């Protein structure tokens, strides 16, 4: 089947999901991001690649942090950035998603960064606009968050260098997590031999094993000997009905404390996509501790988004 993210030449035209992407495209994004890290450390943190291009941030679902990192990435590539907070605008007046996109295309948008509560919305936009305009999925429903998956992979590669012998544990609310899905896909593509998901049965999607992961319900057992611990945010806002007895109960069993982290390798790193719920999924002693790479993740995230935008913009 033709991958809707690739153009006729096999280049990346949209970034919608990491699932099914060729390994060399992912490695090229990570390598390019490494070069952008240097740019973001200079006095002039800008390169002229997207000069004269317009990037539209279409956030149908609120996310200040993700929107900001995309905005910074686009500005560091010299693009003009237009932020549309659609929850408070046209759709409320009855305009359809594709009409909104057509209007913005008529304003000469070159790239759309789309976050939507509905899985598949960025795909629909990408099919609609064709390969000349580029769509980046900034998180759609429970489906995918590809740039987060890439920045997680970048962070792991930065600290662990090679995926060949790694054990990675992803912990918490797997059910609602597009972050977990994108990370599992990219870890598989990069050849990670041991990926585990840890959480209560109620927050585990049915059939998750089919993604090539091992399921654990006990934290200490799941964290035993891992190189990387990825904590997920407990997404209370997405929970309908009683999936959990209480946040305190969740912390007791699945919150990452120094005591539970002791089961991992002594040089294991701790990651979190943010925003963190301290005292619910992660203890402050770990979040602020020497093994936390949560803030470097944010910095790398900008370089990774610059890499994605510059590769798409040149395709």
């Amino acid at each position, binding site marked *: 089947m033709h991958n809707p993210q690739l153009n006729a030449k096999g*280049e990346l035209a949209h970034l919608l999901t990491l699932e099914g992407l060729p390994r060399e495209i992912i490695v*090229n994004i990570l*390598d*390019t991001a*490494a*070069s952008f*890290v*240097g*740019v973001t450390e*200079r*006095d*002039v943190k*800008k*390169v*002229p*690649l997207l000069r004269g291009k317009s990037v539209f941030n279409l956030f149908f679902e609120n996310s200040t942090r993700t929107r900001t990192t995309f905005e910074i990435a686009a500005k560091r590539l010299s693009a003009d950035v237009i932020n549309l907070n659609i929850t408070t605008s046209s759709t409320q007046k009855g305009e359809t998603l594709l009409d909104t996109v057509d209007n913005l295309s008529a304003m000469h948008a070159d790239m759309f960064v789309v976050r939507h509560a509905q899985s598949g919305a960025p795909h629909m936009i990408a099919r609609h606009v064709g390969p000349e305009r580029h769509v980046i999925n900034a998180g759609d429903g429970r489906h995918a968050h590809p740039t987060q998956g890439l920045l997680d992979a970048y962070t792991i590669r930065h600290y662990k260098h090679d995926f060949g012998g790694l054990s990675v544990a992803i912990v918490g609310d797997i059910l609602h997590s597009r972050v977990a899905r994108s990370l599992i896909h990219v870890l598989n593509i990069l050849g990670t031999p041991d990926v585990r998901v840890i959480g209560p049965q109620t927050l585990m999607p049915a059939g998750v094993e089919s993604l090539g992961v091992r399921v654990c319900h006990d934290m200490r057992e799941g964290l035993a000997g891992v190189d990387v611990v990825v904590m997920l945010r407990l997404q209370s806002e997405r929970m309908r009905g009683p999936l959990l007895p209480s946040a305190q109960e969740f912390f007791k069993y699945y919150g990452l404390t120094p005591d539970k982290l002791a089961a991992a390798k002594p040089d294991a790193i701790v990651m979190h996509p943010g925003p963190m719920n301290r005292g619910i999924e992660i203890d402050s002693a770990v979040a602020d501790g020497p093994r936390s790479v949560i803030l470097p993740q944010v910095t790398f995230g900008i370089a990774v988004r610059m890499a994605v935008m*510059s*590769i798409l*913009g*040149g*395709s």
Partner: protein
Amino acid sequence: MPLPDAEALCAELVKKLRPAVTPETAMVGIHTGGAWLAERLHRELGLTVPLGRLDISFYRDDYHKSGLHKSVKASQIPFEVDGRRILLVDDVLYTGRTVRAAMNELFDYGRPESISLVVLVDRGERQLPICAQYCGATHAVPKGAMLRLHRDDRGQLALRLDNA
């Protein structure tokens, strides 16, 4: 006409550059051939300011036509650019577009006092008003052919003509 001998041109360049360098002189090589040449010149001239390397992929003027190059290397400028006299080194000078991009990138690190261009070979056919201050040789090659520097396992440099 046979291609000039890269090793002989290197020695020639060292001779030309020696009177011009001071302990404050900085050198920057352009990836990949220019960086190889710069490594050699930097060592032979005994320069003390650490060598800089530029990958100009983020500054190319053909990005919108050809896209971003694969395997972009990180640029490294391990010295303060402000007020510095810089020798910018490339293997082959052709259209001048690479040098234009390299100068733009350097200015994003600071305001140098001067930039002089050092090249092993000038193959002519300039499209921009750029010229080399230190040049090993001029050597015309057929349009469309690629004149490039190669480096073998022992670090020996050689020029080669590839068909594009």
